[in-house]
């Protein structure tokens, strides 16, 4: 029952924030306190009180929720909390809709990953999309363009997801995805394609990715961080659950997903290398990460799905860390153009350390968390046989420009300054900006050094998703 509170709290606090929104400071502290309470209850329930899974399973019948996605819902709440803390310092005099909508996105995302009812899932995905669109307009000016692109493309994608969910309901005769039986393979093919277009748009898969750089580039940093790490990961997890709820997932669909994944990795990595703007650089790197997760889905074995789910959780931590580091840089220097930065390592050592940890983790360098999940995915690719060993090697090659891009950006931002100009002036960074960066960097290291607790859970989860 406590788990349900943690999902309801963000939505209740969102309503409270909407009520208190005239006073932005009080609203901000109420939002941070509410999210912290939600995170504490979730953590206590997870580690101390009782098995979260057991308590949730008893509620499944009444609320259409399942313990299947708790391993993904937990980081959504934790990262949502850190992002709310970060917003306390980063967003001054927040506009009235900022905290209510941010909490709505956090609450709906956490609930969507454990939701098994197709109608409720459809509602949660739509609420998340519409709230995000309004939040993207926050900074006005170019943000309106970004919001237009986001809402038009994601509404088209959302329509495909809706049609896929309705087709599932029509074909299986139930709204509960946990009770799916068997249906003809051509129906599975049709539903899978609609799902891939719909959720692929939300994930930012090529060729439906064009909204990603604009949206992440123009939205406030905490919103971009949550979208890039958490919403994207949650959408990928929902795609996994829906695709593999239809037994058997078709080989042709999986191959199609793998090829889309490689295209996504390639486009993301190459475009990231060419970027001059820090936020757009991270946006393209998040496209590359989406490709890696999609590749795990494309392999389709339980080992690959375990790696993919671990990568989703890791990406939530790593990508949020990098976005918050970039947010700290922008807050301290008021600059986001990579060419105008440099020499920040001595002036912002904690942010520099956080950035290099996040970049190395995303590049899959041991002993950080990204290494474990990417290794699991590649290993599964080699084990699968057929085309997949070759595709896995191709994936590895395609990620190389991304690694080079991280090194280039770190070098230009934190190390070498432009000799013709002085390093930018850096203003004081509040503790609410620094603490989330430290926590996320420590998590990257700990999840890499002690991965067993998570790998066991994701392995069991992957087997459960595949109906084992």
């Amino acid at each position, binding site marked *: 029952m406590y788990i349900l509170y943690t999902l309801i709290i963000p939505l209740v606090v969102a309503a409270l924030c909407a009520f208190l929104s005239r006073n932005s400071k009080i609203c901000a502290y109420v939002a941070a306190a509410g999210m912290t309470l939600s995170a504490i209850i979730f953590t206590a329930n997870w580690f101390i009180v009782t098995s979260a899974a057991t308590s949730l399973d008893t509620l499944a019948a009444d609320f259409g929720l399942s313990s299947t996605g708790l391993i993904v819902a937990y980081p959504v709440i934790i990262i949502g909390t850190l992002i709310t803390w970060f917003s306390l310092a980063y967003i001054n005099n927040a506009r009235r809709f900022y905290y209510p909508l941010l909490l709505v996105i956090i609450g709906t995302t956490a609930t969507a990953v454990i939701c098994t009812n197709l109608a409720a899932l459809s509602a949660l995905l739509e609420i998340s999309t519409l709230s995000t669109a309004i939040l993207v307009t926050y900074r006005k000016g170019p943000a309106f363009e970004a919001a237009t692109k986001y809402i*038009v493309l994601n509404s088209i994608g959302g329509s495909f997801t809706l049609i896929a969910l*309705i087709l599932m309901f029509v*074909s299986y005769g139930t709204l509960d995805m946990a009770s799916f039986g068997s249906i003809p393979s051509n129906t599975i093919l049709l539903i899978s394609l609609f799902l891939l277009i719909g959720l692929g748009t939300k994930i930012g898969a090529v060729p439906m990715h064009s909204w990603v750089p604009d949206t992440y580039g123009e939205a406030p940093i905490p919103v971009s961080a949550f979208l890039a790490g958490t919403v994207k990961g949650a959408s990928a997890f929902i795609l996994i659950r829906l695709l593999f709820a239809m037994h058997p997932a078709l080989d042709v669909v999986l191959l199609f997903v793998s090829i889309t994944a490689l295209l996504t990795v390639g486009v993301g990595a190459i475009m990231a290398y060419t970027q001059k703007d820090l936020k757009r650089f991270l946006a393209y790197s998040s496209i590359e990460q989406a490709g890696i997760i999609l590749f795990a889905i494309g392999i389709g074995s339980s080992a690959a799905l375990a790696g993919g789910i671990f990568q989703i959780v890791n990406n939530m931590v790593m990508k949020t860390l990098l976005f918050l580091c970039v947010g700290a840089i922008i807050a301290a220097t008021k600059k986001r153009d990579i060419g105008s930065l440099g020499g920040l390592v001595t002036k912002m050592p904690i942010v520099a350390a956080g950035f290099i940890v996040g970049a190395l983790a995303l590049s899959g360098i041991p002993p950080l968390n990204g290494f474990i999940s990417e290794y699991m995915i590649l290993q599964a690719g080699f084990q699968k046989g057929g085309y997949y060993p070759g595709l896995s090697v191709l994936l590895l090659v395609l990620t190389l420009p991304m690694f080079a891009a991280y090194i280039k950006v770190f070098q230009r931002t934190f190390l070498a300054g432009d000799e013709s100009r002085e390093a930018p002036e850096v203003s004081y960074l509040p503790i609410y900006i620094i603490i989330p960066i430290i926590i996320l960097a420590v998590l990257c290291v700990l999840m890499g050094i002690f991965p067993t607790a998570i790998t066991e859970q994701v392995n069991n989860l992957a087997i459960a998703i595949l109906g084992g």
Partner: protein
Amino acid sequence: MAAHRRSSVSDIWGAIMETVLTFGILWAIFACAIVFLRDKWAALALLALNVTIAAFLFTENDLMGAVLKAALGILSPVIIMLAVARTSEPTPRFSKPTLIIGTVLTITLSCLAAFLVQSQFPTERIAETYILFVLLGTAFLIIGSQRSVLKLLLGILILENIGTLLLTWGGTNALFAAVTEIFVVLITLTIAYIAVLDFAEYGTIDSSKLIKLRG
């Protein structure tokens, strides 16, 4: 007695098929009208589409769906017309003759696609298959051929209507129908609001001019 019952069932089925076809042809006409017409009149075509879908749901004995569609289906066109009043429609990307050729081609290709896959659908749903493919094709045509953000919204709303029809034909669920209709209105409201913001900021709702960020 049995022969009489068979005859009655076949009569009823025949009537329903006629209804499906009649409504389907009407929907195709309204959807195609959205391709040609200016934003304001296109919103009225959407209103006609929604009202006829509500009437169709009523003939299918889906009273809940009909009421939802009638009540909420009016809101979207009204919201779009309010947004039209606060914006100025951009010059269309294609001329009327090009759009007419495009529409004819789209309908032909949609029917061809439906013909190719009709064996995969239930035999009693052949007419519905054709109608869905034509609506899907028209929605793509609108999204692909229009510059106005509000016209793109109309294309999205046709896609959402396909969901409503699938739900009706596949086994109505009041919860799912309500969720779908409510979010259609919310999507309309959000896109129309952002279009008005775009117009206030840039003086246009031309999607091809709103891509300066070049994603």
